[in-house]
């Protein structure tokens, strides 16, 4: 039982990171119909920027409790500039091109960002300083530490704020309008370029937070870390129904749970016939199964709600 509980905790923590990253994919897809494969790299850049700022601030003698939020803010701002630039340089000129062109461009941007990060921050792993006393807590045999609790709560909080922005504000209405029909939105006086830029910036800010979470949790950053994370988050977005915000959150948490429960129990359930090497197979099997029965993902059909 405690093992089961622990797997649920593992899955929820992992899942909330997936969910945050998946939101970035789904927001951009909702508005542009573009899969921004460079999003995983924005996560990585966010983590790297936090690390660099943090190291600099601590070097100047700023207290850790002040340095951490400051560097997260710097990383969010940095990623917002990055997200804006990516859209402006790589995607906007291709907005009316065939769909394949921006997709390939996105992969290109991802490779460029990876290599730039490799040049700036090096090939090696960089360890992330542990600033918060990371106490473990025991809940009925399952161990969860402070950083993991913060990750989970912060992810939930950010998602709630995002829902409010999209559904309760003027900007959110503009976003939904652009998602539904760009031309009609433009005729109604919505500045679509501005809305699209803001969407990219919001997604990138979320990515920066996710990057900090991942590196704080595992205590490391690496220029390659965004790739696999991006792939998993993309899967989560598709699972939940790409273009749908709630779908991305649900898909993220679900994927986290499927992975940890799958990896934890598949060996015992099949008597060792399938092992935890089938962890990813298991996750993608669920994805395929969902798409066979619901081709637009779990929550994918509510077009009006997408943003």
């Amino acid at each position, binding site marked *: 039982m405690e093992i089961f509980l*622990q797997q649920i905790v593992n899955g929820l923590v*992992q899942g909330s990171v997936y969910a945050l990253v998946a939101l970035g994919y789904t927001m951009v897809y909702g508005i542009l119909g573009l899969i921004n494969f460079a999003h995983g790299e924005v996560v990585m850049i966010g983590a790297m920027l936090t690390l660099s700022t943090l190291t600099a601030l601590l070097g100047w003698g700023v207290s850790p409790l002040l340095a951490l939020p400051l560097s997260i803010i710097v990383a969010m701002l940095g990623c917002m500039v990055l997200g804006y630039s990516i859209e402006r340089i790589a995607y906007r000129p291709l907005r009316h091109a065939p769909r394949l062109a921006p997709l390939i461009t996105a992969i290109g941007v991802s490779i460029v960002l990876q290599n730039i990060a490799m040049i700036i921050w090096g090939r*090696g792993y960089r360890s992330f300083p542990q600033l918060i006393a990371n106490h473990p807590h025991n809940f009925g045999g399952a161990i969860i530490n402070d950083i993991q609790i913060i990750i989970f709560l912060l992810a939930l909080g950010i998602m709630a704020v995002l829902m409010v922005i999209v559904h309760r504000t003027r900007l959110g209405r503009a976003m939904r309008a652009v998602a539904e029909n760009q031309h009609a939105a433009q005729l109604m006086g919505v500045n679509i370029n501005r809305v699209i830029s803001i969407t990219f910036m919001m997604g990138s800010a979320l990515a920066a937070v996710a990057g900090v979470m991942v590196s704080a949790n595992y*205590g490391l950053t690496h220029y390659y870390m965004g790739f696999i994370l991006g792939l998993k988050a993309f899967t989560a977005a598709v699972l939940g129904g790409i273009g749908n915000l709630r779908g991305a959150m649900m898909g993220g948490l679900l994927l986290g749970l499927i992975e940890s429960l799958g990896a934890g129990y598949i060996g015992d359930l099949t008597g060792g016939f399938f092992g935890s*090497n089938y962890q*990813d197979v298991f996750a993608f099997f669920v994805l395929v199964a969902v798409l066979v029965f619901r081709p637009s993902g779990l929550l994918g059909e509510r077009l009006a709600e997408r943003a």
Partner: protein
Amino acid sequence: MKFNSVSSLILATFVLALTGCEKSATSDQNKSGELVVRIGASAPLTGPQAHLGKDNENGTRMAIDDANAKGIMIGGRKAHFELISEDDQADPRTATIVAQKLVDNKVSGVIGHLNSGTSIPAAKIYSDNGIVQISPSATAVAYTAQGFKTAFRVMANDAQQGRVLGEYAAKNLAAKKIAVIDDRTAYGQGLADEFIKAARANGAEIVAHEYTNDKAMDFTAVLTAVKGKKPDLLFYGGMDAQGGPMAKQVKALELKSKFMTGDGGYTPEFIKLAGKAAESTYASLPGVPLDKMPGGKEFEKRFVANYGPIQLYAPYCYDAVNVMIAAMQKAGSPDPAKYLPSLASISYDGVTAKIQFDEKGDLKGGAITIYQVQHGKWQPLATMGTSTTAAH
């Protein structure tokens, strides 16, 4: 127009990257009439193992720079060595493309690849084209067991290493219940399988065998499953990029078992990644400790001055190049067909060991050292000799 400057910067980066990769392969003689000998090298220079790949490249480069500085004569002509380094991304498919590219560049020999998973498929291409391959670090038994006359390695194989590790875990550390995780690469899987055989032979019980991959960062799910089996010792077959974070997550999950890994984990990077959790973990490395190697101290000093701390296999790369050059000198030719027989029968005093190959191309009588992290540093615990006869 401010964006144009940004995009032109990106474009410039691209152009630089592209021109940097191009190396012309034309005549075997340069302007000053020296004999040009091209030596290929391949390791992952991008991706999660890029730090190890760069380390290999540096070790190889240092040997080549040394050889050029010494003014080595081959067959009465002054030789100039050129390094052609290629990125195989630790990916077996990319490795075969890289191997073909090196063959097309008419290299005299190849130092590589870093991983077993890449060395094994590449070995066929080198063999088909008659090019000598010396892997500094591929330890999977399968690498030299394919029967290719051109494949050599300067490091003990996993049968030797896995046996020493398994024996040490079951006997010296008295582990009764052992859990194993491997990364499903040719190296990780091979080492884990040899470890399991040896541990069982010494009376230990394998209570769990779980898997991950060589790009993963999160192991909490498999570690939780392992925790349920309450092992005395957890063995990981794989590289430091996973081993380090795994050791950390072992601590975080309060999994109270000893942690042991192979040569892939014996790096400063492992300690950096695992943080405090690195303390008292075990790892092994074929060969004797660097400061006990014949030229180890001096090598380390010169390497650190040029490239920074040694990650792992740089001294082995250095030896691999030198033993290849020594064979060329002995045969008086950089032609692989001519120097292959002299390489097979060579006896060369390298910085890592006395290098002699058996009939398969494996290193003869490779010793294996067990290390433990004490006060944030790898410290040698015991060096166990393995005779080649026992390894086959």
